[in-house]
């Protein structure tokens, strides 16, 4: 389906760009839920690289790995959101700047 002459570097660069856009989101977002969303973006960028190399080498290992990554991402989202709901009940916010209970009160 993809043009056989297309340079695989295009796919890797797309994956890399999405990965670092996600990384930017993780370090700048102050809403903990949107940080989780940015992590999902990074996981998907990695999936894209795995699928691209799977196609390049005509080998299914990369696609099998993507299935495992999807399962881990689903588990991570479910647990992360559960922790955030519990945290929201306690503090009435999901702003990570407010999460400084370990900080020296002085």
């Amino acid at each position, binding site marked *: 389906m993809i043009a056989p002459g*297309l340079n695989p570097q295009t796919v890797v660069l797309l994956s890399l760009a999405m990965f670092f856009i996600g990384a930017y989101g993780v370090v700048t977002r102050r809403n903990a839920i949107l940080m989780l969303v940015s992590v999902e973006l990074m996981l998907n960028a990695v999936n894209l690289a795995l699928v691209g190399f799977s196609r390049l080498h005509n080998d299914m290992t990369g696609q099998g790995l993507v299935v495992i990554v999807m399962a881990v991402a689903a588990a991570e989202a479910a647990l992360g959101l559960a922790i955030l709901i519990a945290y929201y009940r306690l503090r009435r916010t999901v702003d990570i700047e407010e999460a400084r209970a370990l900080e020296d009160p002085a």
Partner: protein
Amino acid sequence: MTGADILFLILAGMAIGSSLLVVTVDDPVQAVMSLIVTFFALAGIFVMLDAHFLAAAQIIVYAGAILVLVTFVIMLLDLRAGDIKTPTKNVTGRFLGIAAAVSTFALVASKILSIRMDGFGESTEGLGTVEEIARTIIVDFTLPFEAASVLLLVATIGAVWIARRDDA
């Protein structure tokens, strides 16, 4: 340039543009909706890369399950655009984030561009079918596959236990 090349570039542009929206818009619901666009564009690219089963799984698992869960939590907590101090008000943090992301991207991209790669070539018959995926995850990835099933069970029980009310 063939039609497939143009289609790939359109999907890649959609993916990059919508992922930029994911990390920049103020409204949490709009960020999640942008991520759905990213996932659909990625599913299109997966189809072009002969990963048909993963394209379907991408839509069903990510757009259908994970993002619905995230949207549900955002709406449950009633988060709005002004609730959180966004990076738009923190110029230093935003600048450092852009500098770190762009410089690391440039470093890795320059290495990748220095590697000579030929085109994708023709794919083998049956790449990305359900049959091949099943063979890979059950024969080659037996242990990770079983570990993933335990992980999902533990995560389900753990999520219910962590998010429960104390008085219930």
